[in-house]
């Protein structure tokens, strides 16, 4: 695997030579290697159908690799792990419960919800800027607000790892930027390790400490993003920022020519 990133000491999330094929199809993920140190924000970019969502599901334990392994904090995954929060492409909120109940779902499935849980969830919603909507139903919220609620739900149990599958893809540009800033703030505060799938190169460079390009089931290249902490629209037009975007764009392009 060609990589220009520093070697990872004791990775928190390690995917080693993992392969996966859906029944009756060729390999969707082939010999993929990925290592995330604790606190890393790792973005996976790639064209549609390159296997990035499948790799994310392998990391979550929703799928089990046919060969190779996925390890979180040193132990191999045998199924979905509650150490991992997952944010899906769609908010996937339960329409018949209030926003607060939705955020509390990861807790209420396992034990009785305490008043402390409720106030923590309410606090989290306030941090996400939707504190006033706690007792509404999801359909009364805008798309951006629903995404925020889904993020709060993933964070409510304080999981050390967060896996995100293009969670902001359906949002308008300004809402997406606001959510990116909120996500960075919340995950840095908690020291969470994040694996984030996106097809938006600028989003990846803005968020990540590392960006991996995926191509036809393999990790084609991993780039460390050694930019100063980014915040606000200005940093998106910085020359080093756009330079990195260009590099990653170039790494994605060969497959475009091959496909054409």
């Amino acid at each position, binding site marked *: 695997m060609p990589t220009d990133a520093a070697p990872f000491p004791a990775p928190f999330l390690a995917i080693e030579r993992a392969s996966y094929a859906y029944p009756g199809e060729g390999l969707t993920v082939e010999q993929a290697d990925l290592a995330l140190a604790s606190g890393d924000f790792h973005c996976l970019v790639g064209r549609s159908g390159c296997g990035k969502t499948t790799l994310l599901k392998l990391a979550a334990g929703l799928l089990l690799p046919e060969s190779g392994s996925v390890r979180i904090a040193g132990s191999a995954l045998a199924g979905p792990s509650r150490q991992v929060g997952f944010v899906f492409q769609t908010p996937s909120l339960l329409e018949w419960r209030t926003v607060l109940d939705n955020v509390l779902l990861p807790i209420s*499935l396992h034990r009785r919800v305490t008043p402390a849980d409720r106030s923590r969830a309410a606090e989290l919603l306030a941090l996400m800027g939707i504190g006033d909507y706690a007792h509404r139903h999801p*359909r009364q919220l805008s798309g951006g607000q629903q995404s925020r609620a889904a993020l709060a739900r993933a964070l409510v149990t304080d999981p050390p790892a967060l896996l995100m599958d293009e969670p902001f893809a359906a949002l308008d540009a300004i809402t997406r930027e606001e959510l990116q800033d909120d996500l960075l703030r919340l995950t840095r505060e908690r020291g969470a390790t994040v694996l984030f799938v996106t097809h938006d190169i600028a989003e990846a460079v803005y968020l990540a400490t590392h960006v991996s390009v995926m191509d036809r089931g393999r990790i084609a290249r991993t780039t460390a993003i050694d930019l100063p902490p980014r915040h606000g629209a200005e940093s998106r037009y910085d020359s080093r920022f756009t330079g990195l975007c260009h590099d990653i764009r170039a790494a994605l392009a060969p497959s475009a020519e091959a496909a054409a």
Partner: protein
Amino acid sequence: MTAIRILSPALLLAFGLTWEAGVYLTGVSPIVVPPPSAVLAVLWAGLVQGWLWPHIWVTGLETALGFALGSAIGFLCGLVLGEVEPLRRLLWPYVLASQLVPKLALGPIFIIWFGFGLTATVVITALICFFPLLENTITGLQSAPPEKRDLFRMLGATRLQTLLRLKIPSGLPLILSGVRVAIVLALVGAVVGEFISGGQGLGASIIAAQGMMDSTLMFALFILITVMGMLFYQIVVLAERWLLRGWQKGSKS
């Protein structure tokens, strides 16, 4: 909107008046086509004198019991078949076959088994209500989107939790539309069941009226059955709206 609200009952009135006028103008025998005024008079007399009420009660009871029994069993079987795929594949041809047997044709055998009266009609009604609930429950349980199923897996939910807190609520709108179909069929089942087995009830009264060539009474009974059906349907719609109140909130439709 208000214009239509006024126009709709006005249409019924116009229809009734045309019918009434038609009967007098053509001079057709009231035994063949009774005028609406006579029908309403018979209906009114029956309600005031009270001899219609026991029949209304019996048909209402048969409909309610058959509906409750058939829907509940249909829902429970739908849960089992919806959750256990091999069982569904194993039993589906037989479930389908059982529905293609015309259930009213089973009436005579039910009379041998359960005797004349309430039980046989309730069983026929329940059989008719069973299928819409079974089918809609199975389909409803499959309607939860894959991402939400993955969410419940990620959160370590048990199978029972996933059923109770994801699959049944996701499928509830579909399941309740099955209930709406069932209540309409239930009344038809009860009335026609009485044709075969009943000594009492509105369906049995229609047969009795036929024996006396009393077409005026028959039309009065048609009106009663229609009103009962609308009442039952309305109750189900209200219950549905109440159960789905969480879904409706904020939906833009």
